[in-house]
């Protein structure tokens, strides 16, 4: 059996209070294993992003527990959370969040400079097939290319986990597939655990496991014994 990397127990996140109280997460139990590819599906507002943000150390839970590699995340202070993000987590967002004043390579280097055992920026760019665009600025790249740079930036530090919130949300099918291919290459070759939020039901085919969210809870989970390659995803 694989080793669990995240163990999540009774995770609850409540926004506001009283009348206007919103339960974004309402007791989520979930385990993610090392090296697996998980896809998170569910209607808008069901709490996917909230979960990912908490797991990624960007947000605090109201109650419940998140263990990362056996250590509780919920107990970390601000400074320790920063270190956690720096050393263990790679993020990819729907809006690529590249630094416009830096070239592709420099955007990647931004992260490798502060990591302990990073790959070289060029290596990371090669993994997303963008070596030839290393000296381009974000404004000179298409959306899909920008997203792949963002992925290169996320994986360059060899993180244990890759958290992706709608990475293909703004892309067409062809570009989306390129991005997913990059993600799955990294998952395969580096053994990085990946959690991908998407609204595209077809994408679940590439995952080892699929989680269905509803009203702040996990409603269902499917194991997929034979994940397919992203190029075969029906969009």
């Amino acid at each position: 059996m694989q080793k669990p990397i995240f163990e999540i127990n009774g995770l609850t996140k409540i926004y506001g209070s009283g009348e206007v109280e919103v339960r974004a997460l309402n007791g989520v139990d979930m385990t993610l294993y090392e090296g697996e590819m998980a896809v998170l599906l569910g209607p808008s507002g069901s709490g996917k992003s909230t979960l990912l943000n908490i797991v990624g150390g960007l947000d605090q839970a109201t109650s419940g527990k998140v263990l990362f590699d056996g250590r509780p995340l919920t107990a970390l202070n601000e400074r320790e959370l920063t270190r956690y993000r720096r050393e263990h987590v790679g993020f990819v967002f729907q809006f690529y969040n590249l630094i416009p004043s830096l070239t592709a390579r420099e955007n990647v280097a931004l992260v490798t400079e502060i990591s302990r055992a990073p790959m070289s920026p060029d290596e990371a760019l090669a993994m997303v097939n963008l070596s030839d665009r290393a000296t381009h600025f974000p404004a000179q790249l298409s959306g899909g290319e920008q997203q792949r740079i963002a992925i290169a930036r996320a994986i360059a530090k060899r993180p244990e986990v890759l958290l992706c919130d709608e990475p293909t949300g703004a892309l067409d099918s062809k570009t989306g597939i390129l991005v997913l291919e990059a993600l799955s290459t990294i998952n395969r070759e580096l053994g990085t655990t990946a959690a991908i939020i998407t609204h595209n039901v077809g994408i679940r085919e590439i995952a080892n496991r699929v989680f269905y969210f509803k009203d702040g809870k996990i409603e269902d989970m499917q194991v997929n014994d034979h994940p397919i390659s992203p190029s075969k995803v029906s969009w």
Partner: protein
Amino acid sequence: MRALDKKLVYDLRRIWAQALAIALVMACGVATIILSIGSYRSLEETRSAFYERYRFGSVFASAVRAPLTLKERIASLPGVSAVELRIMQPVLLDVPLMVEPATGIAVSIPDHREALVNKVYIRQGRLPESGRPDEVAVLETFADAHRFTPGDSFEAIINGKKRKLTIVGTVLSPEFVYAIGPGDMVPDQKRFGVFYMSASVLRALYDMEGAFDDLSLTTLRNADLGRITEGLDKILKPYGGSGARSREDQLSHAFLDNELTELKAMAMIIPPIFLFVSAFLVNMILSRLIELEREQVGLLKAIGYSDVAVGWHYTKLVLAIGLVGMVIGVIAGQWLGLGLTRLYGRFFTFPFLIFRHSVDLFLLATGVTMLAAVAGAARAVYSTVRLPPAVAMQPPAPTQYRSLFDRSKRRFQRISRRTIMSTRHLLRWPLRTFLTTLGTSLSVTLLVTAVFAFDSIDYMIDNIFFRTERQDASVSLVKALPLDAQYSLRGLPGVKRVEPFRATLTKFRHGETEKRVPIVGISNDSRLLQILDVEQNPVKPPNSGLMVPDMLARQLKLRPGDQVQVELLEHNNRVVSVPVVGLVSSYVGLTSYMSLKSLNRLLREGDRMNGARIRIDASSLPDLYQEVKQTPVITSIALLDVSLQKFRETIRENITTMTTLYVVLAVIITFGVIYNSARIQLSERARELASLRVFGFTRGEVSSVLLTELGIITLLAQPLGWLLGYLFAWMVVKGFESDLYRIPFVISSETFANASLVVIVAAVVSALIVRRRIDRFDLVRVLKTRE
């Protein structure tokens, strides 16, 4: 409320701190104009009202002894409206508990009626009754300096006899707004007083029955003053007249006029600079603030709002901020202006104050500022509404970054990505970077412009009190005595060195212009008075000929080598022609110099002196004073230290008050501008910086990106600010310069340093605020929204 207006309210609430800072910058520009020009106008108006209500004379003349019967002839000179003949004589005072000798003049007031010219304002008590030899009304400043009130008495030596005088009232006079004693450079209220006594009493005391020795008259509006003075001179010549003079040569008026001119120069030159700088800054800040709204503008357009509607929306935002600024500015300006007027009114001891509400200033100041503000907003809105909404909604396309710090160049290998981010950002929008730097440097500039006056004053003080006048004290004698008198002075207690001088009042004439000028003759080996030439080098008095101040030379269009006609006012108005041999530097007064020998030759009375500069041993001062009081030939002794202190006080009253206000306003503007620049930079880059936090950069690392930028701009701004400050200060000096007055153009390195220090402190404080905001970033929120 319509949705768009709600957005306005929310926007204002969101940026309230920045909006307030902008409003304050506006307020400072507006307030500076209103308070300075407003208070100057009020004072000017007060002075003319005082002069008019109390019938300040427009022509003055004195004689040795002239019969009262001349009154008819004088009154019938064309243009004369009222004449007052009077007695004006020096008195020596013996004030209890005062070691240094004090002097004053006794002035007669008409018996049984009000004075027709130079009426006094009674502050306390009453005027002396006619015929009462022991009653006196004194100038309020003198009474205050001695803490005298009506009922107190003191002793005075009048015409050689000691008399006890009882104060029955304290008064103010348009003629003695400033009372300056003989040989003094500035008023010393303690050592010099004016004493009003009944005319019949003074006539008796000075053996002047049926006679007068001084007169003052008022004239009709269009009177020809030249003809009146000429007529007076003719009438008084047989009676020892020493030349009639118009107001501009009246000591108090000239002094007050000078003070008001300084004030006017301060009000007319510096505040407009403040107004325009603050307007420019507001324009710049608002334009950047609204550029931040670019995506929202695009969105509003995308959903169907017209360009005009969007433009009007942001104009309303600016108007709201501007309105707050204007209200603060007008109220603060008005309030400070009133305070300032009161303060100056007290310095000048005006009996009442007239406040002028300058509507034109309100309109001008608020108009300029509002226009600049709206223009700034319009520029930003216009540049955005021009874009197709789709383009506007995206973050501005990063224009091609320079390949500066290209990694392939080895030498840049070590520069961190974050430094590259900062620098690239600055280079990406060179115009914006330049404007931000310019804004910051203008803060430095304003501070330099506001503060450098102190350097000029220091320089002036050094020039007058340490380089030119180097004596410990100067004494004036009752009349010109043979030079041997210096040996008697040398014998006084504690006197270590005596340098005699001869001073005489003359009138210079060259071409069309004439000017009353004191000439001082000093010996060639003079050390206690050091004449400085225009390059500030010490020069010796010439063996023959005159050294004239450069200012006087300009007024009379004199150049070395020219002959000037000199009318000897104290020697039967004999006119002699004297060559000008050199120019000397002078910041106050028009005193011209000759060698003692050649002046005495000119005056044809043999080798004489009527004063001396002395060096004394401070420990014997009380003995010296005691002796001086017993020595009737010495009319006054003026300590240089005291003069310096009085000079400083006068300057403080006049320039320091205003300058201090300017400095405070400049500091507020500085903080407003720099805080806003920092906040806008933060808004522009919030998303980028939040991303860095997400990747695991620490707060310190993330802040350093922005703080590096802020630091670079602040540093770049310093030299530019100094340069502009130098330029503006030069403009101020040029603006001050008149025929009568000028200030030296001096800026010390401390002034530059202090200006920079204030700006750097403002930058550091703003940096800390920004840093705190970065620390508090809500990462999730920043990432969830596109912008």
